[in-house]
């Protein structure tokens, strides 16, 4: 019948949650002029503020022109989170850095549309790979697959 819900005390969840929040914002230069930040977990306004600060500082420091913010690991994009993400992309653009939100899952795409959020000019891709290929194209990087050596 109805199994008992596997209990997780609120404290335990709070601990995990805190741990998740305190995970640093590991902005990485994955290529010259291209920054990457994979986001995981739940975004709240404090974390969004931290993110924006970290991202803008890294842009200033590296003079990068492209930022890829991968949100495939973000569970929920509600109106508040979407608003934060839109603001982040606006702020990076003011600094001359184009921010792409990558990793938009079918579920996130549908919920954002149902909510009625206007994503406007925010650049988005389904996968991190698409964002990376786009970034390479825009920075003039060409990738070549070497033909397999014949044995």
């Amino acid at each position, binding site marked *: 019948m*109805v*199994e*008992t*819900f596997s209990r*997780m005390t*609120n404290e335990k*969840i*709070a601990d995990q*949650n*805190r741990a998740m*929040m305190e995970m640093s914002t590991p902005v990485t230069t994955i290529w010259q002029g291209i920054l990457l930040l994979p986001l995981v977990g*739940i975004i*709240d*306004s*404090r974390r969004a503020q931290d993110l924006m600060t970290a991202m803008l500082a890294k842009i200033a420091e590296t003079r990068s022109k492209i930022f890829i913010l991968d949100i495939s690991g973000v*569970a*929920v*994009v*509600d*109106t*508040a*989170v*979407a*608003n934060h993400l839109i603001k982040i992309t606006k702020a990076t653009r003011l600094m001359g850095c184009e921010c792409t939100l990558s990793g938009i*899952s*079918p*579920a*996130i795409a*549908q*919920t954002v549309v*149902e*909510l*009625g*959020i206007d994503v406007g000019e925010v650049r988005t891709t389904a996968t991190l790979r698409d964002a990376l290929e786009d970034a390479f194209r825009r920075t003039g990087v060409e990738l070549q697959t070497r033909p397999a050596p014949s044995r």
Partner: protein
Amino acid sequence: MSGELRGLPSPLGEDLWAPVCDEPDVNIAIILVGKVADRLGLKPVARASIMTAASELARNIIKYAGRGRMRIRLVQGSRGQGIEVVAEDNGPGIPDLQKAMQDHFSESGTLGLGLPGAKRLMDDFHLWSEPGKGTRVTVRKWKA
């Protein structure tokens, strides 16, 4: 077993209560909703929908009432099994329900899509509010 009282779905299993007093509480509530959705076996889009709606409702509690609580449970109704989330507070209530359900109407300077957006995401949506008494929003997502 699953007889419905006056068309109301009957609970399956125990209720989970989550206090909503600050942002970490909102995050915990969202995580709990996700866990119950997983237990029900909701598909990714439905799972994201109920988590997103719950998030909107929880944030509204913080924004307008300061504190409140959420009840999360599995229910059995005429459409099969589903997940139900109730968000309630004893806050000031919503002065104009019609306006509150309009897109882009916000009393707090935010997008104003939370309530109408949550309604669009859900299969069932009930809003009760009385000025000076509080607000209660019930949402459901059915598995089928």
